[in-house]
């Protein structure tokens, strides 16, 4: 059997006295849409930071298609096919939507300073190809009309979609999405639903942190539930939804008992 897209083994991450991730193991199978859920402060974003290289765990291994990456810099991980979005948007605000997407292609494009200064080495052809690929991506997420608008001037929902387009620009094999539906209205969430389905059809494996349970249950094949940095449940949506430990984590012991009593 081939190595999974992402495999986390016994990862522990502490910030001073606080254990954000506690001996977590996780497998994300190639081609799957895997959700990471849990109450606020459960360590979901910490897991994303550890995977993308913004935080270094004290122990444990992270493998991307079998290759250990836990000591690599964020950009080296990006070059190995990893991309992510952020819970609080991190766009390049003073750049246009198109330039944001082009910036996302940085590692993928290549080209030397010499090529840039002389405009040789197929510079113009590469730029043209990149621009048309970026326009296609903007079209794909529904932002073709605002390609020349500065990112900071876009509406919130458009900014969220632009961040996904920028992440896709790197042609990732694994995409980490940190609460993509946060702050979206129902119509926008519906659009996101379609968008993620389309991304998946492109063969991109996704790991998703999300609080919108409707979205999670509809889209995901596999769900991992975290609480206090530990994995408390894992499985298909149906199984996880019925898991008493999950209900207790979200509602507390008393709430869970009340829910059980309800008709």
């Amino acid at each position, binding site marked *: 059997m081939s190595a999974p897209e992402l495999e986390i083994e016994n990862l522990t991450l502490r910030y001073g006295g606080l254990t954000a991730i506690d001996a977590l193991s996780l497998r994300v199978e190639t081609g799957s849409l895997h959700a990471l859920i849990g109450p606020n402060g459960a360590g979901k974003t910490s897991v994303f930071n550890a995977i993308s290289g913004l935080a270094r765990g004290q122990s444990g291994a992270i493998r991307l298609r079998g290759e250990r990456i836990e000591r690599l810099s964020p*950009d080296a991980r990006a070059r190995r096919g990893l991309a992510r979005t952020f819970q609080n948007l991190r766009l390049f605000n003073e750049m246009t939507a198109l330039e944001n997407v082009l910036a996302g292609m940085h590692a993928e494009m290549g*080209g030397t300073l010499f090529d840039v200064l002389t405009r040789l080495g197929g510079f113009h052809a590469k*730029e043209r190809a990149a621009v048309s690929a970026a326009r296609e991506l903007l079209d794909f997420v529904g932002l073709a009309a605002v390609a020349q608008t500065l990112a900071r001037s876009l509406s919130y929902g458009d900014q969220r979609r632009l961040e996904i387009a920028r992440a896709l620009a790197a042609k990732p094999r694994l995409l980490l999405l940190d609460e993509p539906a946060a702050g979206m209205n129902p119509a926008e969430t519906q659009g996101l639903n379609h968008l993620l389905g389309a991304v998946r059809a492109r063969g991109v494996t996704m790991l998703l942190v999300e609080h919108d349970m409707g979205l999670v249950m509809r889209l995901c094949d596999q769900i991992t539930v975290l609480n206090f940095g530990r994995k408390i449940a894992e499985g298909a949506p149906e199984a996880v939804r019925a898991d008493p430990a999950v209900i207790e984590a979200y509602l507390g012991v008393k709430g869970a008992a009340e829910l059980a009593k309800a008709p």
Partner: protein
Amino acid sequence: MPGDRRAPRPIHRRHELRRIPLMTGFDLDDFLWTYQSLLVALGVNGILALSMYVVLAIGQLSLGQAAFMGLGAYASALLSLHTGLPFPLVLAAAMLAPATVALAIGVPTLRLSGVYLALATIGLGEILRIFLIQSDLTGGALGLPGIPVKAGFPLIYGCLLLAVLALVLICRSRIGRAMEAIREDEVAAAVGGVNLPRYKMAALVVSAMLAGLAGALNAHASSSISPNDYGFDAAVTILSFAILGGIRSPLGPIAGAMVLTLLPEILRPLQDYRLVVNGLIIVVAVLYMPHGILPWRIGRVGVSLRPPA
């Protein structure tokens, strides 16, 4: 301050001008001669402004541009005075010396975010100034006189033009996009595949090279240099070129340098109040023009973006 240095004007020349008060026509030679030091300062300050731009363009703050300039000036002056090295090689050495120092400062400071580079470069400036004053080799507080005048207008403005051209080409490319991305959000840039340490180091080294070049050109245009030309106030002046001009394109800092070099001359009739007015103009411009006096933003794409027909 680099802009204030005047090349001494020969006395007989002044005498001649006084004898013939009415000028019958525009004489280019005479114009160049009269404004020689101002024209040198405009070109040199333009290059310095670009050296500042390169660092600010990736969101770093250096207050070492004056020190890098001084390193270039002294390295080139000493080589010209004591060796027979051809001038192009002297200029290369004047870029290499500050580049080496920038590399040494960059390794420990660029890994940290925040003000560490600014602090380290302030320190560099002070160390250099004190060293220059104490050392016999560099002529102590009096500096080095008698540097051969080898840098004329074509060379100075040629260098300025080449530097602008190179920076514009870089801006409109994948490298320019990565630089702006780092300035906007370095975490997002890194996650997007930009090698932060490499970009930050390259920017600092290139900026030191440009400042060193400016220092060498200035030294070989004005024939004498002294330690106080490269102190903290010079560093702040160079920073204000970029702040006043704006950094949305490489042309912004050049515009800032032009204004800040010309303004003291234009305000000369105000005599003692001119520095007050000079300062007021800077404050007002910074307050009311957050993107600088040249807010035009350079596009970051290397091909034309006309909408497809």
